[in-house]
């Protein structure tokens, strides 16, 4: 806005005694004294001139609010770092001559696509869950924690609009992570291991274009399954003022669901667990893509997400903001 008008002090420290702002003398209220009389509002909705409820909290503003945060920067930085760490680990260690079944980790160093696949495989169960829960769970809860939420609401940003804009930005950032991770893994894997067509543990080899298509399918499906995590985190974040509680609670619930999924005695009941289809994207690694499980996963995730987001909206629209 008027940032240009206000020069930053040349020295890093404070400059006591010397007014740092040209137009503004601290402690004086000249500006107020010269302020014009209030204008008579002519808008139909009763708002101030130039106010439009549909233009409040623009996405770029929300993005700036979030992008400056350490947690955003650290998450992105870590996702860039992770493939490099993995490369280091593969370069340091000697591959074990595994007998029996070939798994993704055995093929990780075959080439860039396989490395990207392994990176996704390694992160899908927990890391990406944490990152998505962080972005979605903390976005409303941290504002409540900082007390800035009430100032947004009296700006006024409509409650539904606030949720919408926040959810879009949170999902956008989570999506960025989801694309960033395989992207960096592809690039760094290319440099470290070269480019070789992707090989799946089933023994089939995919062409480069097919590989990229499959990666896109996998990332797309991961995005859909993680939507459930985002919706859960968002709902938790709307319910609590403690960001840590929202994020931690979300991760906890996902872990519980994963543990229950391990209990084979539960039989078909496991199919309704929201995380049951987390790894259904492995079906995209066969000679042909098998959509069956992925479709089920999509339905499951979308159904849960719808319910959770509806609950979040319902709760927030009626909530008394006392934080």
């Amino acid at each position, binding site marked *: *806005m*008027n940032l240009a008008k206000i020069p930053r002090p040349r020295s890093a420290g*404070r*400059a006591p005694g010397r007014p*740092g*702002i040209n137009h*503004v003398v*601290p*402690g*004086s209220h000249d*500006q*107020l*004294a010269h*302020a014009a009389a*209030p204008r008579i509002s002519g808008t139909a*909705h*009763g*708002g*101030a001139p*130039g106010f*439009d409820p549909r233009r409040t909290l623009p996405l770029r503003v929300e993005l700036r609010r979030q992008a*400056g945060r350490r947690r955003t920067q650290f998450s992105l930085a870590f996702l860039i770092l992770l493939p490099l760490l993995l490369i280091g680990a593969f370069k340091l260690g000697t591959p074990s001559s595994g*007998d029996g079944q070939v798994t993704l980790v055995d093929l990780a160093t075959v080439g860039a696509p396989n490395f990207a696949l392994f990176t996704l495989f390694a992160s899908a169960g927990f890391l990406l869950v944490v990152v998505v829960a962080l972005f979605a769970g903390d976005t409303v809860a941290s504002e409540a924690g*900082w*007390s*800035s939420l*009430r*100032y947004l609401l009296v*700006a*006024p*940003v*409509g*409650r*539904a*609009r606030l949720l919408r804009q926040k959810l879009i930005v949170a999902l956008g950032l989570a999506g960025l992570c989801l694309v960033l991770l395989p992207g960096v893994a592809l690039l760094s894997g290319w440099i470290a291991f070269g480019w070789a067509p992707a*090989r799946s*543990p*089933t*023994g*089939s*080899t995919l062409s480069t274009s097919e590989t990229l298509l499959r990666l896109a399918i996998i990332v797309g499906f991961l995005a859909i399954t993680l939507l459930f995590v985002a919706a859960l985190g968002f709902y938790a974040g709307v319910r609590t003022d403690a960001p840590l509680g929202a994020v931690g609670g979300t991760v906890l619930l996902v872990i519980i669901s994963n543990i229950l999924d391990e209990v084979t005695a539960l039989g078909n009941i496991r199919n309704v667990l929201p995380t049951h289809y987390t*790894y*259904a994207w492995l079906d995209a*690694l*066969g*000679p042909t893509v*098998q*959509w*069956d499980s992925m*479709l*089920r996963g*999509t*339905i499951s995730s*979308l159904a849960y*997400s*719808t319910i959770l*987001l*509806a609950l979040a909206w319902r709760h927030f*629209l009626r909530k008394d*903001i006392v934080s």
Partner: protein
Amino acid sequence: MRNWRIAGRPRRKVLLWAAAVAVAACAVGGYAVASSTSPPIRTEVLRVAVPPEPDGSSVTLDATLYLPDSKKPAPAVVLAHGFGGSKQDEDADARYFARHGYVALAYSARGFGRSGGLIHLDASAFEVADASKLVDLLAARPEVLRDGPGDPRVGFTGPSYGGALTLLAAGHDPRIDAIAPQITWNDLGRSLFGQSAQTDAGTRPGTAAGSMPIGTPGVFKKAWAGLFFGAGATQEGSAQISLACGRFAPDVCRQYQATAASGAPTPELLDLLAASSPAQIAGRIKAPSLLIQGEADSLFPLSQADANARAIAAAGTPVKTVWYSGGHDSPGSSADQDRLRSLTLSWFDRYLKHDGSRPDTSFQFAESDTGISLQDGSVKGSTLTAPAYPGLAGTPAVKTTSVTLSGEPQDVVAPAGGFPAAITSLPGLGGALAQLSSTGLAGSVGGAANQDATFSSAPLPASVLVVGSPSVTVHVTSSTGNATLFAKLYDASADRNPAVLPEQLVAPIQVSGLPPGGSDVRISLPTIVHRFAAGHRMALVLSTTDQAYQLPPDPRTYRLALTEGTVSVPTVAASTVTDDTLLLWTACAAAVTVLSGAVGWFVLRRRRDSRETTVAPELVDVPVAITGLGKAYGDGFRAVADLSFRIEPGQVLGLLGPNGAGKTTTLRMLVGLIRPSEGSIHVFGHRISAGAPVLSRVGAFIEGPGFLPHLSGLENLTLSWAATGRPEADADIDAALELAGLGADVHRKVRTYSQGMRQRLAVAQAMLGLPDLLVLDEPTNGLDPPQIREMRQALRRYAATGRTVVVSSHLLAEVEQTCTHCLVMHRGRLLAAGPVAELIGAASSLSVEVDDIDAAVRVLTPLAGIRQIDTPQAGGLILELDGIRPGVAVGALVGAGISVDRVAPRHQLEDVFLTLVNEGETPS
């Protein structure tokens, strides 16, 4: 706020209880449903008298009848077990059918289990006749549905030995209505003496691969035969004849032993095996047949089921062919086993219960290694389906692709005594051997190097899913005129060593009478379902040895060359079987629709709500008009009750009250953060609700500052303005910055600010855009005295521009000095309202310090307008003025020559306030 949280707790408890009750109800309901779907099944053990052995000894069979929980007569299913087994093996399946409303009959065949008699290898006079006896038995049971007198509605099913019996019984006994034989033979002789060489290098219509083998018999499958015989010979039972023959009938035993010793079948054995083969009778089968065969089966390969299918279909009988991932070499995946069970059930439902479902003769087969299990990361397969069973090769329905092979003519050696021999498969371990070979035990492609001739294709340009029996023609020259060879089609790729032999299947070839110049031999390779990936090669390997077969004892050399240079591979246009992919897609679309619908509904609802803002035209110039406002929390606590007041433009209104008086709650309701339980708030004539647009004319500072700690003060201000979406030019950011008075510190991050700095920044933020109504909740908390003074000035100046200010405070002096008007609240109720001066009234109190108290009292006492003079302490006077200004009193004192050291107003409002509060507390 504490109260609100308490209020939330009981509701949450109720929810938790409700959830727990719901879960418990589901569990109980689920259990009830589960137990109701498995009604009690009655079992009845029977001894069934059947035709006697040739020596005249009587035979009874051990059988169990499984009766469903049904009053009406039901169709029956007879379950025959595999070789070496007993009726116990079929117990689970029998219960499955009984649960689904069939009378199931499992029995131990003659020579097995607790049944009497000897093994005659499904001979028509014995085992097949026994089956007819079982049908008689079922016809006599009242629980069994009958088509006519002595003719029960009955289906037969069973694996392997039981499968062959099923076919033979259906051929002999027309009363059998449907059959589902599994992994069984068509021609037992051809199964045990494998022959993959064909007479005719060309293909004739109506003949499939392997249908016209030359030089019967083929190569003796000695490993399987030994195992097969061993299983029968080691049967425990009363009728054991000798240690060597076990429970085999003497003629069967004798012929087997003669064959095993020589490696060539005796003619008697061939006759016996032919009599035990469905091949001779399949054309007479009228019972709709579900033929299930295993892809991992080196004993009875897929071609056996193919021969059955063609023979039965030729008679016009409905046939459905299903291949699954198992077989005699592997149990197959558990998913496949479940699938077979339900396929069999629906086959019987269709043809025994006549449930009205459409006839389904589509072809199903299993492709392995297509995906990775979600559960344990292991490689799994999938099921594919084609509209109809095409046959293996050589029929018009089979599409074939030619793949060019190359390789020079090669000389290979068959060692004397047949050793060393290549190990490709061991009976029952076909799949396991694939794992062994990957560790190098079985060597690379084929066996010893000089025993193999290899002809390889170029890397395949595209992946090929081979479904059926590939065929190739090879020119064979032998040093002896006889040739025994084993043909294999490997899947070779650079990244997989050793190469993969699909299901470890081998095509044995035995030809004799070759001319010295050799002869072309057409070979039908093993029937497989295998996807050769793009970039992989097909490698045809012809070996002279194979451990599983009887090898010629004499040494030979062969010269092997490609005749055509191509291998013809059959393919089938098939689609993956999923449990209703279409349904899934539909559900998927529905889920997306519901999600977007839900989002849209919320958006629209918000829009509508925001349009519903009610306007009171008479109040458009009134900054705040509150009527009957009340807020009760969930637990009944009333934070605010019956509050009504108005604020006029230009006022600086002080909201005064002790802590907990409801000031903050009122202000939160004023800006739409809390929904009132009753009453209404109008700001400039617009009714307040959450996010009402009129709030854009209100600036608020409520219960402390709220900033993003990671941004600078200036960024916080600019972003906070940007969040309103209003034009930058309207922000009046300079005025705000001036008020904040942070200087260059505005560029530092807010987390480094002191409490006072944050406080000032927050008030500045509230002033952004110079709102027409400024609402400040305890704005001077945490400020030092100069800052407080500055704040007071700012507020007065602000009001002077014609705007309205509402300040809440628990500090009386604060309100007295800053505000023009004042509201006093206590316990959520309004105690008093009006201009500050009016509230204080004429009665104002003054504290005066003078050098001579007595003189001062004397001077003041006669003065009109002084109600009372107190002298509480030395040097001090307290005057209660009534109608005169303090200056008059001070002037009188000074005029009398008394030195006035200090004059201070006493906390008049405090007295008023305390009086009001006390009045409010004592119910009068």
